[in-house]
């Protein structure tokens, strides 16, 4: 058996190699920037480096997401000694300019500079995304040089499993998939579960449209997820783990597969991890396009190779999960928080955010905003802060109408609640949910019943068909919304719709059906006048 990786030596070597370059250029190669042309920009810069014989002066590093996706491709140029410059909208021409003008001639390319102190960056607090846009996700050395796997080493060599669970409990971390169940309690349940075989599953079936937080973790910092999983498995006694990734994320699958192989080779996975008695195997499983598989019992069915239909709980997965064995399912973002909690302690984590919602939350900020992209903010930040400062406000002289959180399971928050703190409980009180992190801002041109219909069409398509309230209810709700939005709905339709929402919410088998009415209920609640304006007056006929 090969010797395990020496984390400190690898980190030292990496830092030493880095210090040889006067300049280091980090180019965002995340999916969003690649769509905006980051690939050709990278090639152009490589050619410019070669043409000008600058290979010893500047190191080109492909990194993950830098956050401000609407201004991509993004580039960060670091000078030895600490000076850092950011560039936005880096076309191949701008990329060549950065190499020729800034690196070679020490003249920054003024026209493309991006202010790193703008509120978009300054208001964020990064825990989960600490490394995104900083490290090269394909190189474990890059992760290790930034402190990677030291939390695992600390847990395995200095902490008993119970102590790890206790730190997670103290941290107050709650599940980032949306429901917000206390992670420490879940871990304690699996740790206490009887049986020799226990499973751990990372839920990377990020299905909400407009949400790509987990994809960013899996693609841009895969080792962080692996480290979080290894710590979770150690704390709970699981010896086998799966990462369930939706098939729409082929790049995440590729990166994770590679990272797992490299981690095994370095004895960070497999048998006798870091020469301790702890063993763990992780395998990636791919979905095939079913939103319901984000629900944990459906997800398990899919891992077993079956149709992804949910089942009733209890028994909860920590009692009876994969192949009948105790199983714990944690969201990818949840697990990505773990290394930081082990390194800095649970109470450090609990000091971020609010008492009931600790830590940070990653949001995919999209819609009618000046700045869109991926952000990480402390829990409890106001919606106004996110929209106006980070998002830069609403463009084109329009005004804010609503923010949608939680995707098809969530709701809309109108302007009068812009000062609400963003945390699990406040959002629930407003009829929305934290959700997995999609945050879509809509301006005053958006018609709310259309938004409700959009989400209902989604839920209708994605209903797995197992239970009647969801299968039939979503179709009926969509039909009524269709009548209302096309101007043929009656007052009675609206009444039926509200009634149906209650029934589907109360009687559906799983979270998909139970939460499917949320977009309707919240838009009726806050924008009832828009629905009523569309109704035709056939009350007399209906009566």
């Amino acid at each position, binding site marked *: 058996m090969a010797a395990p990786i020496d984390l400190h030596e690898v980190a030292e070597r990496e830092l030493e190699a880095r210090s040889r370059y006067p300049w280091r250029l980090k180019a965002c190669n995340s999916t969003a920037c690649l769509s905006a042309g980051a690939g050709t920009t990278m090639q152009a810069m490589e050619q410019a480096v070669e043409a000008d014989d600058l290979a010893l002066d500047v190191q080109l590093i492909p990194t993950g997401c830098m956050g401000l996706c609407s201004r991509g491709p993004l580039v960060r140029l670091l000078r030895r000694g600490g000076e850092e410059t950011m560039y936005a909208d880096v076309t191949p021409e701008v990329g060549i300019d950065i190499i020729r003008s800034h690196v070679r001639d020490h003249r920054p390319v003024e026209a493309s500079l991006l202010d790193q102190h703008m509120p978009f960056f300054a208001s964020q607090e990064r825990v989960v995304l600490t490394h995104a846009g900083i490290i090269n996700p394909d190189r474990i050395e890059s992760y290790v040089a930034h402190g990677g796997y030291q939390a695992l080493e600390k847990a395995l060599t200095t902490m008993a499993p119970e102590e790890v669970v206790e730190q997670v409990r103290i941290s107050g971390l709650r599940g980032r998939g949306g429901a917000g169940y206390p992670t420490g309690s879940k871990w304690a349940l699996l740790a206490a579960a009887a049986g020799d075989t226990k499973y751990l599953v990372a839920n990377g079936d990020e299905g909400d*449209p407009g949400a790509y937080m987990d994809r960013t973790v899996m693609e841009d910092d895969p080792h962080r997820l692996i480290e979080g999983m290894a710590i979770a498995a150690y704390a709970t006694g699981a010896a086998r783990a799966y990462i369930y990734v939706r098939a729409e994320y082929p790049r995440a699958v590729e990166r994770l597969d590679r990272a797992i192989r490299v981690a095994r080779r370095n004895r960070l996975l497999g048998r006798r991890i870091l020469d301790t008695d702890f063993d763990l195997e992780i395998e990636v499983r791919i979905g095939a396009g079913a939103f319901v598989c984000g629900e944990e019992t459906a997800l398990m069915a899919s891992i077993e190779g079956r149709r992804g239909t949910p089942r009733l709980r209890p028994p909860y997965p920590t009692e009876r999960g994969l192949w009948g064995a105790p199983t714990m399912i944690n969201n990818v973002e949840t697990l990505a928080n773990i290394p930081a909690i082990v390194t800095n302690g649970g109470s450090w984590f609990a000091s971020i955010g609010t008492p009931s919602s600790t830590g940070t939350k990653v949001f*995919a900020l999209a819609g009618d905003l000046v700045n869109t992209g991926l952000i990480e903010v402390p829990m409890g930040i106001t919606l106004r802060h996110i929209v106006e400062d980070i998002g830069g406000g609403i463009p084109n002289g329009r005004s804010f109408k609503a923010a949608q959180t939680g995707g098809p399971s969530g709701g809309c928050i109108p302007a009068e609640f812009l000062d609400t703190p963003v945390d699990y409980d406040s959002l629930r009180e407003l009829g929305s949910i934290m959700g997995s992190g999609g945050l879509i801002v809509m301006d005053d041109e958006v018609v709310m019943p259309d938004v409700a219909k959009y989400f209902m069409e989604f839920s209708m398509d994605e209903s797995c068909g197992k239970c009647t309230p969801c299968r039939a209810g979503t179709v009926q709700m969509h039909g009524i919304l269709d009548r209302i939005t096309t101007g043929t709905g009656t007052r009675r339709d609206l009444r039926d719709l509200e009634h149906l929402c209650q029934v589907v919410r109360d009687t559906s088998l799983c979270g998909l059906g139970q939460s499917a009415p949320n977009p309707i209920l919240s838009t009726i609640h806050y924008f009832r006048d828009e629905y009523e304006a569309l109704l035709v007056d056939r009350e007399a006929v209906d009566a």
Partner: protein
Amino acid sequence: MTSTVDDAPSQAPEDGHPSGDERFALVDKHLKRVRYEQDQLIETLHVAQDVFGYLSEDVLMYVARALLLPPSMVYGVATFYQLFTFEAPGDHACTVCTGTACFVKGADGIVRTVGDAYAVAAGATSDDGRLTLKTARCLGSCGLAPVVVLDGTVHGHLDAAEAVALVRAAVDGGGES
């Protein structure tokens, strides 16, 4: 890992598919790698679809036999998941993202206009087999909304007319089939 039947690699069809179609060898290679575990059904279907472009009845039967699963179960699983397709795809593929950000910016208009131009419904292939029109839940490129992926290339910030022009250039413009 946990099969209902013994882990029995010997059940592999020894000589591949009777047609001699060598593409089945690629499916066999995957099956061997996962040791014919029945819980690898979805992964196997992905591989088969990559190899053949779609899942024909013949391919589904082949997978069912190899994994010792009832054809009804294989069919049930394959039809449950949206990414599996049972018809040969068209020469060109146009995928319109209908995620929330793209919806807010007019993706449904793009689907309608492109669909009308080629008389094809979302999720189907035009009668002449030249264009498959698909929608995607979210491609995660929300900063570029609305997004259209044409034959693998991402195009952002399009209106309906621009999208149709793009598709026309690829499909009618003598582009490679």
